[in-house]
């Protein structure tokens, strides 16, 4: 049987198995080799909230979707072309995501009676004819894995654990990928247990050779390099890029960084990541709770550190009072909210961007904070850096709104050099020698920013606190005129930040026209791809994506007024759309999805078309 070589422009593969089957690692390693050969890509991992849900059941399925191609890839893909199912439950949970005519690669060992029962299949789907719309490759991965390790004297468990490498090897063969980077990874990872490393490499190669020799497959696929902007690239996931952004900001401000954090999904990786970089002058503190986490960061900021706290929605709500304190003290503080589906505990591992209103309004009193939101995994670097810059230069708490999709998703990143990064200007109040002039801790500059007066500075001993303070002196004051003045001043300080952030650009399309699609955060890729398709079909649609939400760029209102219609797609029940209507009195239309998953491109395109049609209809009537 001859094997033909076919060229594809884009492919979406979904790896699915039991949460103990190592599908996340398989996906990540395949992503790495894909990035290294120069394809553009996006990924979407999905895992159960339970660490080990009952093995073999549908709730225990963990999956990883990778969309890669030689053209621009901005989303993890709507439907997948290839589904790898390591057991019956994985097939059951994911079949609806496979396009008709797609390829299924199954591990037949996961379709025995026990597995079928656990997945609640009455009949074996491999035998009952229900998969005739697909091309199914049935491989006993478990058996081949054991056979390839027969001479290694490993336990059953150790053998079984490496079966994901067989699948990875096979896919590397199918898509013409070198095994080199994976082998290097395995050797490094198992440096202390070389026999396990060797076993994994053996199984990986066995999978690759199986593709070549088993005469099961008739095609191999090549996906050419994407035409990315020239430069040096690496692969990154959002939470890692966030960590790097913080490290870079500490470096560019020449400040020690203090992270106070309490573990929470999907933000814990920020704590894990930063705790590795202590040699960069970073202190990480795993606090007793969310409140202590933010409070300790405020304490560190008071002492002159770049104070950061990381969490997700349920944690940020607990931090509310302390964030208000930082607003009142006018200290720099960066609060990272890696959002997840709410309310309450909600769906910890599912995707939602529903904490925008919380960020804007979720504190007592008039309590303005700056808000930024990254739009892609790599953009997490830039916006984490910007969050720090704004906070330090404007002495104000900044909320950074990422989400689970950005946190765990990956993309190629044309990373910057240190020399490309902005300097962050920090001004500590200078000591005073024998001066009789009283120190005024709340004296402001032309941006309404007070100076950072840190303990240890002679002659400026002073007290600050959460009680309303008199302008300039900082002394407690309940004077009516003063309170109104201070509330207005704190807000004016926020608005002044607009002079120090970029103007809003149009990502795609013209600067005026029929329709603007206004997005924020992780919906960027889906909106960009949908708008691209709509424009190709002749619609006058433009895409505007906000990264600076509060304050918004100075030209935003003017820009939005250039379009007949503004549509705001969000993964919530309509939050940015309300802010836009409220602030600008623009009748923006919402598109909302609240299903714990990102917009599909086709889905979003149809939703946009629906809004356009309804509008056109209304006009005709």
């Amino acid at each position: 049987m001859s094997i033909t070589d076919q060229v594809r422009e884009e492919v979406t593969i979904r790896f699915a198995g039991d949460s103990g089957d190592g599908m996340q690692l398989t996906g990540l390693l395949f992503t790495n080799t894909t990035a290294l050969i120069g394809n553009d890509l996006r990924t979407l991992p999905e895992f159960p909230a339970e660490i080990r849900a009952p093995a073999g059941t549908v709730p225990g399925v963990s999956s990883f979707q990778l969309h890669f191609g030689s053209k621009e890839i901005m989303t993890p893909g709507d439907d997948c072309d290839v589904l790898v199912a390591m057991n019956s439950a994985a097939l059951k949970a994911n079949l609806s995501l496979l396009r008709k005519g797609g390829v299924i690669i199954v591990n037949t060992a996961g379709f025995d009676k026990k597995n079928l029962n656990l997945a609640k299949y009455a009949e074996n789907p491999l035998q009952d004819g229900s998969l005739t719309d697909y091309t199914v490759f049935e491989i006993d991965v478990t058996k081949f894995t054991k056979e390839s390790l027969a001479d290694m004297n490993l336990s059953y468990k150790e053998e079984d654990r490496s079966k994901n490498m067989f699948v990875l090897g096979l896919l590397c063969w199918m898509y013409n990928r070198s095994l080199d980077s994976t082998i290097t990874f395995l050797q490094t990872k198992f440096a202390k247990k070389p026999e396990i490393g060797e076993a994994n490499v053996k199984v990986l190669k066995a999978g690759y050779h199986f593709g070549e020799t088993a005469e099961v497959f008739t095609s191999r696929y090549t996906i050419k390099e994407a035409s990315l902007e020239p430069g040096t690239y690496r692969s990154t996931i959002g939470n890692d890029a966030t960590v790097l952004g913080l490290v870079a900001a500490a470096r560019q401000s020449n400040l020690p960084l203090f992270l106070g954090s309490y573990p929470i999904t999907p933000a814990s990786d920020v704590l894990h990541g930063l705790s590795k970089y202590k040699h960069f002058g970073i202190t990480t503190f795993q606090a007793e709770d969310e409140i202590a986490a933010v409070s300790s960061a405020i304490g560190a900021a008071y002492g002159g550190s770049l104070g950061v706290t990381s969490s997700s929605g349920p944690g940020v709500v607990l931090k509310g009072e302390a964030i208000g304190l930082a607003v009142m003290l006018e200290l720099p503080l960066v609060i990272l909210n890696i959002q997840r589906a709410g309310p309450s505990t909600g769906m910890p591992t599912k995707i939602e961007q529903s904490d925008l209103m919380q960020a804007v309004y979720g504190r007592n009193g008039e309590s303005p904070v700056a808000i930024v939101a990254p739009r892609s995994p790599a953009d997490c670097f830039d916006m984490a850096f910007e969050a720090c810059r704004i906070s330090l230069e404007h002495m104000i708490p900044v909320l950074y709104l990422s989400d689970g999709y950005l946190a765990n998703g990956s993309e190629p990143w044309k990373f910057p050099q240190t020399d490309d990064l902005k300097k962050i200007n920090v001004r500590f109040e200078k000591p005073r020698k024998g001066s009789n002039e009283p120190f005024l801790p709340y004296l402001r500059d032309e941006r309404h920013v007070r100076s950072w007066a840190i303990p240890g500075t002679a002659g400026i001993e002073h007290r600050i606190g959460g009680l309303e303070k008199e302008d300039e002196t900082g002394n407690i004051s309940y004077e009516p005129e003063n309170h109104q003045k201070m509330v207005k001043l704190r807000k004016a300080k926020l608005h002044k930040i607009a002079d120090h952030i970029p103007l809003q650009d149009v990502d795609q399309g013209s600067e005026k026209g029929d329709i603007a699609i206004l997005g924020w955060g992780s919906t960027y890729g889906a909106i960009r791809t949908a708008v691209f398709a709509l424009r190709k079909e002749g619609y006058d649609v433009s895409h505007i994506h906000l990264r600076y939400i509060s304050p918004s760029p100075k030209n935003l209102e003017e820009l939005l007024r250039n379009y007949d219609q503004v549509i705001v797609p969000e993964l919530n029940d309509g939050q940015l759309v309300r802010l836009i209507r409220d602030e600008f009195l623009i009748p923006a239309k919402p598109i909302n999805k609240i299903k714990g998953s990102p917009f599909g491109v086709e889905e979003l395109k149809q939703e946009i078309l629906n809004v356009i049609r309804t509008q056109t209809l209304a006009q005709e009537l």
Partner: protein
Amino acid sequence: MALQTKINDFLNGNENGMVAEASEYTAKDFSSDQDVRWCPGCGDYTILKQAQNVMPELGMPKENIVFISGIGCAARFPYYMDTFGMHSIHGRAPAIATGLKVSRPDLSVWIITGDGDSLSIGANHFVQLLRRNVNVNLMLFNNQIYGLTKGQYSPTAPEGTISKSTPFGSLDHPFNPLALSLGAEGSFVARAMDRDPKHLKEMLLRTHQHKGTSMLEIYQNCIVFNDGAFELFTDKKSRPRETIYLEQGEPLIFGADKDKGVRLDGLQPEVVELNGKYSKEDLWVHDEQDSTKAHLLSRFFEHPAKGSGLLFPRPFGVLYAVERPCYDDMVVAQNQHAMEMKGEPDLDALLRGPETWEVK
């Protein structure tokens, strides 16, 4: 190879900025220009006065001293001290102080808190601070009542306390702050009272001298909502009978005529009269480093005394003081170790990551 940061550079460049030599300070130098606004006769006044009195003895430049408070009457304290200070939010001062001390070990950090602030809303932070043993000083103003909110019972109020929120008497069992501190692995646990300023000042100095979290409970009279709560111990007449002042290496003797003592029968303390049967030599000798004895002392008032039928006196002074590693020291050491192990940080290498590829 210390990582030079702006803070280090800035502070190192400031050495000539000191206004006065630490030794030249008087108590007046620590009094801020703000009017003190506690109720006339409040126990807080003497505590403030003693804190201002002890500050010159710390031998520290005053810009290196920071007072951090939570919420409550006592929490106004920092406004009246001419040092650095922060009046923060309810119960969170220990967490704020932890962040400050860990990032700025050069500072002398004092926490001002009360029974509601530290044993109710902030109880978690209070015990976590003690177990971590952050090198800060904590002054717990205990008045067994909520004063600022005008008279509700507090977590140290005795069962049955009639208050605004408990007109039929409170039902919850109170905390014993010293026993709680010892249970939380506190390395320094002491008690003082507002009505004995000399002893209070002495305890404040001990608090400063101890390396680790120093927990000083101060019995403080709330003249408006809970007047006389500690009268038994503060009243000059009953004090000798009802209190015992602990001195390292000294036997536990009390009473107006020094005629009573505490002895140990195994692990059972008993109050004895020094009138023939027992002499000074038979008594329990105070040892601050003995955690078992400290636990017994902390619970004196919870159990009736065995033996003579006399009541246990309330202990004042340092119940427990041991050296154990401080969290802030260990954080600094670990960061230092990471720098030595990993060498000069290279941001460009970090940004590059393990694998890159070129697009031409």
